[in-house]
């Protein structure tokens, strides 16, 4: 078990954790603090806190959950001290409340039709091999880069890094509902970008 190896001072175990969580920690810290240097400091402080507390770690939560809980707390304190305007959780809250549709409303029939809300310009099936082609994955990557910070972070944690809804809500200190709304927005936008790329005719019907 990795915790036991850390207690024994096993450097390889520590390197393994760094490679698994290091860049994610930097990114998450960056959402709370004003610049890269502060984020790096927060990450360093977090690791020291983890190492100094490792003997008391009882494994009631996973090491990952514990790690990110410490990180978020420290990053938040640091962000407040440095006067960063809005913490992530506040941003996430306002963003989750704004009603942004998953699909352009123009693609559905209006209230005067016999079947309001039914597809007017329905999506067409995509060839699976094209979606999973390397080139398409590149399109997805740039679509994710264009997302607002909160949505980008949630889709990265959930869909790139495979975190559970609870791990995401916990690490970012947002509600389960908010992480899902943000994820849904993010995925829906990525889908729309992919549709433009794979099936521009359908995607462009309303324009």
């Amino acid at each position: 078990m990795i915790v036991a190896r850390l207690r024994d001072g096993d450097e390889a175990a520590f390197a393994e954790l760094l490679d698994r969580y290091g860049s994610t920690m930097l990114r998450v810290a960056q959402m709370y603090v004003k610049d890269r240097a502060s984020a790096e400091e927060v990450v360093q402080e977090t690791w020291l806190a983890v190492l100094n507390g490792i003997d008391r770690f009882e494994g009631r939560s996973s090491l990952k959950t514990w790690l990110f809980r410490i990180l978020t707390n420290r990053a938040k304190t640091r962000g407040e001290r440095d006067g960063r305007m809005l913490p992530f959780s506040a941003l996430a809250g306002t963003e989750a409340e704004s009603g942004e549709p998953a699909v352009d409303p123009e693609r559905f029939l209006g209230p005067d039709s016999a079947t309001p809300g039914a597809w007017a310009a329905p999506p067409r099936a995509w060839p699976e091999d094209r979606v999973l082609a390397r080139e398409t994955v590149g399109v997805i990557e740039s679509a994710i880069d264009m997302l607002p910070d909160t949505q980008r972070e949630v889709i990265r944690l959930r869909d790139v890094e495979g975190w559970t809804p609870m791990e995401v809500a916990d690490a970012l200190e947002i509600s389960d509902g908010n992480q899902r709304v943000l994820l849904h927005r993010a995925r829906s936008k990525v889908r729309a970008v992919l549709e433009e790329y794979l099936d521009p005719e359908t995607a462009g019907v309303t324009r």
Partner: protein
Amino acid sequence: MSIFVREMACQELVELVTAYFDGSLSRADRRRFRAHLRGCPHCTAYVEQMRLVIEATGRLTEEDIPPEARDELLDAFRDWSEGRSTE
């Protein structure tokens, strides 16, 4: 329309896909969602697109930690571990 089950419109369904995948829909909504899918090839195509989006996104690689930051942290680990063994 039955008084028990209100039909789900396509426009409503597209907002519930993530909740459906996460298993966080109420039992009634899950039933309406599935009933709609059974009768709607368009929404079936849509849900399949979302599934593919998730699968393709999963193929992105995680970034690596910058090497300087990694080295610094490894140094900090060594200091910690030495301090500990001499305690």
